């Protein structure tokens, strides 16, 4: 048995590998976030996850629904006491992971199935869900976004898959000197206890491997839409709310999770401007978003 601690988005969580088959080798993208020692500070853990292939649920929950999460299926079930059971399948519909979590996602058990690729996929998905759903009432969200950093501030590009988030951030890297990519798919966004909205790199980054233990105060959100021209405008509160909320990982049927996420988005809107960029994949679009979000002239 081995218990390890990770620190992501200034939250600490533990993963306990109970059987000999599963180790930290399953989580290479989490390595930059692993703590060397047991955390000394008396901060409560965000969650505790136990990995045990020999564990089986005592009972089967009733079905909430089957959800397509970018090609792979999550079957969600609920027990009478509010606990969740979530079956994670891969794109080939093979079962990779079964998760049973307390209703507030403060602790959970998983058993994994299949080869290394399936286990890696299943466990990473379990960790993402635990992180997003445990953080929901702690001013913390996992956002679907591509994030760049410039002069110590993070800028998040939002939009449904295929709108050119990664294209726009890669154009920032290309045209704006001193820019780096913080995360390309699933950064942590949090309003910290000091009242500052920050973005953090995470162990989850989609197709681009970018698992960096970095953080920055948020300079702006940018909702992207493809167009045959470039135009940028500041979004009204209501439109910005409607833009940010669907970018967060959230369970709409769970009041604690959904209301917590709405409150976090609401607080973010008080702290950070949101812009809407209709754009071509070119340098002029970068100039527009750079000048709007940084307030500086594009050199």
């Amino acid at each position: 048995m081995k218990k390890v601690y990770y620190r992501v988005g200034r939250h600490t969580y533990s993963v306990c590998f109970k059987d000999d088959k599963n180790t930290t080798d399953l989580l290479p993208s989490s390595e930059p976030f692993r703590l060397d020692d047991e955390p000394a500070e008396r901060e409560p853990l965000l969650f505790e996850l136990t990995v045990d292939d020999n564990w089986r649920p005592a009972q089967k929950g009733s079905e909430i629904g089957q959800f397509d999460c970018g090609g792979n299926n999550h079957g969600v079930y609920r027990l009478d006491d509010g606990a969740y059971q979530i079956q994670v399948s891969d794109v080939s519909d093979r079962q990779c992971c079964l998760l049973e979590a307390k209703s507030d996602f403060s602790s959970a058990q998983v058993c994994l199935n299949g080869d290394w690729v399936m286990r890696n996929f299943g466990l990473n998905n379990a960790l993402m869900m635990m992180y997003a759903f445990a953080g929901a009432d702690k001013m913390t969200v996992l956002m679907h976004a591509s994030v760049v950093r410039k002069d110590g501030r993070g800028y998040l590009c939002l939009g449904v898959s295929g709108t050119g988030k990664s294209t726009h951030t890669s154009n920032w890297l290309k045209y704006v000197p001193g820019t780096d990519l913080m995360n390309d798919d699933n950064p942590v966004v949090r309003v910290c206890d000091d009242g500052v909205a920050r973005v953090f790199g995470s162990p989850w980054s989609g197709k681009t491997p970018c698992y960096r233990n970095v953080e920055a105060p948020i300079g702006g959100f940018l909702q992207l839409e493809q167009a045959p021209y470039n135009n940028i405008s500041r979004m009204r509160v209501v439109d910005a709310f409607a833009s940010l909320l669907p970018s967060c990982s959230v369970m709409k049927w769970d009041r604690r999770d959904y209301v917590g996420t709405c409150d976090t988005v609401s607080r973010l809107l008080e702290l950070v401007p949101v812009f809407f960029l209709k754009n071509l994949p070119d340098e002029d679009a970068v100039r527009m978003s750079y000048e709007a979000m940084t307030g500086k002239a594009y050199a």
Partner: protein
Amino acid sequence: MRIKKGFELRNVCGENIIIAHGLENIDFTKVITLNESAAFLWNKVVDKDFTEQEMVEMLLAEYEVEKQTAEEDVKALVTSWKETGMVD
């Protein structure tokens, strides 16, 4: 009539925004805003059965408004609440 389960009025940066949670509202993707008097009525009637007549009386008690105007406004409001599926 009654406001359906799962619909909640929340304050987002000074705006009155209705959010919808719950399995029954999983396909409800609209973001609805209410002005001050509509939010006032929402808070008065949420979680109870109510009629248009009662809403008119609430408006008249709170705002300086002609009865006919209040009736027309309530009718329009209830129609839009019904159209968006927030009330049954």
